[in-house]
């Protein structure tokens, strides 16, 4: 017996009797003999609960827990205990996609709340139930622009995070979409390099961009709309609380990563992407959308809607193949935003803005770093080191500190979060100075 199999010998016999089979093997007669496995699997013997506990703790112990000054798409955010306590309730955790709405109102309701919060943060009209991550969400936004404009070239700013760019390129290749880069000048998208052309389905920019720089996309927005293309802004979740919204730049689609809103780092996943758009593009949007309706008794209720766009109805003609998304992570973000609320998000983003500038100023003051760009920034910034950055980072690791990401030769990308305190920064500076 094993704790996950309840079958006693007697049960098996009784069940076989009802089925009319001699033994379980008989039930597999459809599998040709030459395809049936003859050997045991080459995997380890079963571990007991206590052995598992020991083994996993040992593996976890091989991962170094660090004081993190690195971001580049994943941020050392704090998860309030309420978020983990509520999102791990079995009713949320162990349910499937809400195909039977009468017994899935819990999931459907939080999807509705999630969509509402995303539309509120982005300023756009409609959001879906979540995407895999910020990068795939941006690639799907490109597909929407492709379907809407029937044009084959997408413009992407060079200031975008290179991982997001890689994912965009992967997706573009198979749809025969050309990816054309807009050069960067002084850390921002160089609008003056753009030529007049109506071949563009749209432009993808990021805010804050890869270097943490906050760009003003007004001119790009006007320009791409004049060319008949769409504006797609990739914007990180936390920054939506303080920076200018995609809607105020007249973005047609906003996409991005929400990990910074209380989702644990977990070595890169599970995170959660969002996608929001205008009413005009709503029916081109991939993924699930939840709407409000009533039941036969007139009670307010929630239901998956506009399913005629989706794969299980439209098959080859669906506008996306997405079915499972990151629902539980969307729930976490919804609970997080409920707790933090209007005032909390303001306070935290102001803290992050202040702390990043404090770190910047103090690093420059050490004399070991010089600025790379002179632009407004939020949370992250790039500095050129006058010391060997690799050696510095190795030294910091010995003090359990994760230093900046080296994005090009001796240029480091630093990040803070709402967890970063004045003391953390001073300690970091102390170690950097000690390295000298």
């Amino acid at each position, binding site marked *: 017996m094993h704790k996950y199999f309840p079958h006693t010998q007697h*049960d098996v016999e009784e069940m076989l009797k*009802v*089925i009319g089979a001699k033994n*379980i093997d008989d*039930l*597999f007669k459809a599998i040709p003999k030459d*395809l049936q*496995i003859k050997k045991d*699997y080459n*995997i380890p013997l079963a*571990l007991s609960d206590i052995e*598992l506990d020991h083994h*996993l*703790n040992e593996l976890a112990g*091989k991962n*170094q*827990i660090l004081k993190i000054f690195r971001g580049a798409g994943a941020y050392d955010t704090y998860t309030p205990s309420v978020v983990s306590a509520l999102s791990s309730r*079995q*009713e*949320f955790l*162990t*349910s499937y996609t809400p195909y*039977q709405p009468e*017994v899935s*109102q819990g999931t459907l309701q*939080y999807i509705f*709340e999630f969509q*509402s919060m995303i539309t*509120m943060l982005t300023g756009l009209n409609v*959001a879906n139930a*979540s995407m*895999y991550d910020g990068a*795939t969400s941006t690639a799907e936004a490109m597909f929407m622009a492709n379907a809407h404009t029937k044009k084959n070239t997408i413009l992407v700013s060079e200031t975008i995070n290179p*991982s997001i760019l890689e*994912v965009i390129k*992967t997706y573009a290749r198979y749809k025969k979409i050309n990816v054309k880069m807009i050069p960067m000048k002084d850390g921002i998208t160089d609008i003056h390099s753009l030529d007049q052309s109506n071949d563009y389905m749209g432009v993808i920019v990021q805010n804050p961009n890869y270097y943490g720089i906050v760009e003003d996309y007004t001119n790009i927005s006007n320009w791409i709309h004049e060319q008949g293309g769409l504006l797609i802004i990739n914007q990180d979740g936390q920054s939506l609380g*303080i920076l200018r919204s995609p809607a105020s730049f007249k973005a047609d689609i906003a996409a991005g990563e929400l990990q910074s809103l209380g989702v644990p780092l*977990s070595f*890169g*996943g*599970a995170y*959660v992407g969002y996608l929001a758009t205008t009413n005009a593009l709503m029916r081109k949007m991939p993924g699930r959308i939840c709407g*409000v309706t009533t039941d*036969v*008794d007139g*009670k307010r209720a929630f239901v998956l809607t506009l399913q005629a766009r989706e*794969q299980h109805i439209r*098959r080859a003609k669906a506008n*996306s193949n997405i*079915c*499972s998304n990151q629902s*539980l992570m969307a*729930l976490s973000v919804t609970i997080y935003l409920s*707790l933090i*609320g209007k*005032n*909390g998000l303001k306070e935290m983003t102001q*803290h992050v803005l202040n702390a990043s500038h404090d770190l910047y100023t103090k690093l420059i003051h050490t004399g070991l770093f010089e600025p790379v760009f002179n632009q*407004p920034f*939020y949370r992250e910034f790039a500095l050129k080191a006058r010391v060997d950055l690799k050696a510095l980072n190795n030294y910091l690791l010995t003090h359990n500190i994760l230093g900046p990401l080296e994005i090009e030769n001796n240029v480091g990308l630093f990040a803070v979060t709402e967890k970063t305190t004045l003391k953390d920064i001073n300690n970091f500076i102390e170690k950097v100075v000690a390295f000298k």
Partner: protein
Amino acid sequence: MIYYDKLIFELSKNERIGYHFKSDDFKTVTLPSNLLRMEPLDLPEVSELDVVRHYTNVSKKNFGIDSNFYPLGSCTMKYNPKINDQLASLRGFQAIHPLQPTSTAQGALHVIYETNRMLSELTGMYAYSLNTFAGAHGELAGLMIMRAYHDKNKDFNRQTIIVPDSAHGTNPASASVAGFNVVEIKSNDDGTVNIEALKAALNDTVAGLMLTNPNTAGVFEKDIKLVADLVHEAGGLVYYDGANLNALLGKAKPGDMGFDITHLNLHKTFSTPHGGGGPGSGPVGVSEKLVEFLPNPHIIKTDNGYTFKNFEDSIGMVGSFYGNFSVYLRAYIYILSLGKENIGKIGPYAVLNANYIQASLKHLYQLPIKDYCMHEFVFDGLIDQSTHVKTLDIAKRLLDYGFHAPTIYFPLIFSQSMMIEPTEVESKETLDAFIHALKVIAEEAILDPEKVKHAPHTTPVRRLDEVTAARSPKVSFKDL
């Protein structure tokens, strides 16, 4: 389950807060006003207890696998062990940054490497990538691999993917998204591949065939080797949709059947929680000749431990980092908890359970495929339909009896499909209770058909007006 329909926004009251945050004495920085948020931030203002009560009440409107039996066909709703959740939440896994040096994350890389290796062994494939986030994402990557392979061979006119009409909807959708044309071929009556239809569809424009085995009607493709041979002879590749792998554990490996590319759903076969629709994990696996095309980055083992490497011929990156680590970590724990002695019992017990339900109810419900089934099977509605009680009604009435409904109206090859998948974790007692409920419903359908047609009666809400919802969509709070 209770009815509670307040939205968090409706609890909001000015000044209330649900957080306790302290900032330090930093100099206040202000960005230029053209870069700052202009609109008010209308997030809820609620206390911590408001949030706790609200989401607790919201959760109570949901049915989970811990609530009761969840026989949703092709979804493999098995128990999600608690120890997996607990150990996956260790700080050593949760607090590590994806871009910290690999030398400081060897425990995490061990999990990636070993999960990859064990999945390869269990399915007979050469290697997997865990970077794909869900089954459909694995399909997309798998089809991109197919494209990359043909492109590398300069076989540019292979633009067609063949999909049987019994396939999951994601198959044709993924093929479309990956830029292929889709040809659907008619299946045999039992949903298996019609060899003549396949032969007629094969030519030098075919990139490959996508197949689920056992198929969506719970039937094993006994001609699978012939099917694979025919596709290979025509120069195509064969893709395995792993949604139904649960049936095969302990019995057969897709790799032995001639499949070149597979995806698995760890949130089905390997017990990771579905989370109300994700996060899933959909690793994509390949045979040896296709390894170089797997998504970047790859994990490799060196003398100095594990590290990541990019392959030149790779289809590229399919996500920002390495997929849903916290999800496949649970699958890793699950596989080890069963081990070599037990994991091979999954298929046999799952198949035993499905056949037991099938045999116990076939005198009341139409059984279109009269043979042993694999891990799931399809009833085509009631035998006695004199009162016009439909599959939808039966499904809704099951909710009243405390069971989740089966998958309904799928596969499309039958008009009243009820696709039932019990999984190996259910006891005879649970199955008997479910069988009893379906017997009672069959009886009610004749004696009190209106009761069944208007079910459910006891759920937090009853049947919904889906038409109005789609005609004038209200999809956010401000639309109300």
